């Protein structure tokens, strides 16, 4: 479980987080969604003890990251936004160092590593040097590494950024499977479809403020179930409807180009913030 209370962070004079409050339940997959520079990574850095908040508090499974940092750090694994593997070392060696940092015995490191390599599809690459792995494989290795010490909470900062659609889907299913084992997952992303596909609940962060927290379903249906995108000569606009019939009715009265579709999470955020997320 993650609890954040009135978190404030400033870099020099710029305030990056404005009294952020959040609660993530045990076993939940929580997506922290927001545009570039919203403060997602900053939040994760505070939660994982890499940066200090100016005020406010954060608890991981009840342990304060500020006051009981060693116990709090035992609770989670982190998949950071930028790759931070030891490029000169092999896959195995990267896992070994991580396990030793978490005070695991060599036998349990080997056992768990073997299982995880199978799980993320890296079994045949354990002796490869990391810099020889593709970006997608490196991401998967980072996820495996973060899971090695069997944390109850997993932080993932944009785990699929820069990957192609296929590999992204593979990583999504990996994330789902990790959640099914009971791990609480806190994931940041600026891909709306990622949040829509994966998350039990979504928080939308904009310029360091939480705009809304809800389930994707509730958020999507706030303005209706169906949407029509109309392309007029100068702009595109979207109109929402509660049922397909009313939408069809509307179409018959129009002469512009249009597409009828189900609403998605992006509509929710457009409505909430009046701008595109990507």
């Amino acid at each position, binding site marked *: 479980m993650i609890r954040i209370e009135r978190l404030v962070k400033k870099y020099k004079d710029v305030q990056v987080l404005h009294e952020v409050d959040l609660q993530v339940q045990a076993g939940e997959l929580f997506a922290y969604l927001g545009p570039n520079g919203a403060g997602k990574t900053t939040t994760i850095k505070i939660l994982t*003890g*890499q940066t200090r908040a100016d005020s406010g508090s954060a608890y991981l499974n009840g342990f304060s990251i500020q006051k009981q940092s060693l116990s709090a750090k035992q609770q989670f694994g982190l998949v950071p936004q930028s790759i931070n*593997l*030891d490029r*000169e*070392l092999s896959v195995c060696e990267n896992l070994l*160092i991580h396990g*030793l940092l*978490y*005070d695991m015995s060599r036998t349990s490191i080997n056992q768990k590593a073997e299982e995880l390599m199978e799980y993320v599809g890296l079994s045949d690459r354990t002796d490869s040097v990391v810099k020889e792995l593709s970006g997608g494989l490196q991401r998967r290795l980072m996820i495996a590494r973060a899971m090695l010490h069997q944390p109850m909470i997993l932080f993932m900062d944009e785990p699929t950024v820069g990957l192609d659609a296929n590999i992204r889907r593979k990583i999504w299913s990996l994330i789902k499977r990790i959640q099914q084992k009971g791990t609480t997952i806190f994931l940041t992303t600026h891909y709306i479809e990622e949040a829509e596909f994966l998350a039990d609940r979504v928080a939308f962060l904009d310029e360091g403020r939480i705009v809304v927290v809800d389930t994707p379903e509730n958020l999507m249906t706030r303005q209706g179930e169906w949407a029509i995108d109309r392309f007029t000569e100068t702009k595109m606009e979207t109109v929402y409807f509660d049922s397909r019939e009313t939408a069809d009715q509307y179409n018959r009265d129009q002469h512009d180009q249009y597409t009828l579709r189900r609403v998605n999470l992006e509509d929710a955020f457009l409505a909430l913030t009046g701008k595109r997320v990507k």
Partner: protein
Amino acid sequence: MIRGFYAVYLREVLILKRRIFRQMLSWSVMPVLYLIAFGYAMGRHVQVGDHSYLEFLIPGLVAMSSMTQSYAIAGEINIARFYWHIFEEFQVAPISNFSYVLGEVLAGITRALLAVGVIVVLGMLFGVVLNYNVYFFLALMLNSFVFASLAVAVAMLVKSHADQALLNNFVITPMAFLGGTFFPLEHLPEWAQKILYFVPLTHAAEAIRTASFGQPFKFLNFIVLVVAGIIFFIAAMLCVNHARD
């Protein structure tokens, strides 16, 4: 308290292992040049006290190399921190600042011992076998401890790898030349000798040299090194927090 230090240490050792041959070659370049230029070519007829200049030079090289090589751990830390972001792994792991510093300092000492091993072997090739006894070893360890600790402290404070290079140029290199490594301090004016007596390397060079000449060791040398080492180590521990932004 010391949990996790071994992981930090092992990581540095594994990286070092991958390039050990290149590294050993590079460790031998500087000593070989000094031995040829100053020891063999120029210093053959120079006596320092009862010893040939070569015999005088080798303990100085040992002091200098153990300093520069243990201090070089700062470069490794910078690369891990600024280029590969591996330092984040340590920040996020449930290990104390003490463990982190200890792991890196031990890695620095390991580098220094290996580099000194190269010099001792080279010295033998030049026909110089000194008294490599317990005091020699102790002084060597302490010197590496002092400069590895200083290196970790500095690495936590700098904001970029370039800052680090600047510091090396203004602090480490002058010390390497003036700390009684290549010529007896008695040749310098009195005021300079006084200043250099506050420099840990001076004491390391003296301790290493007296030990390798089989002379009685000076208590002061060891006290200065131990105190400097402890101060730098504690400073390094405090500086780890500084590396968070």
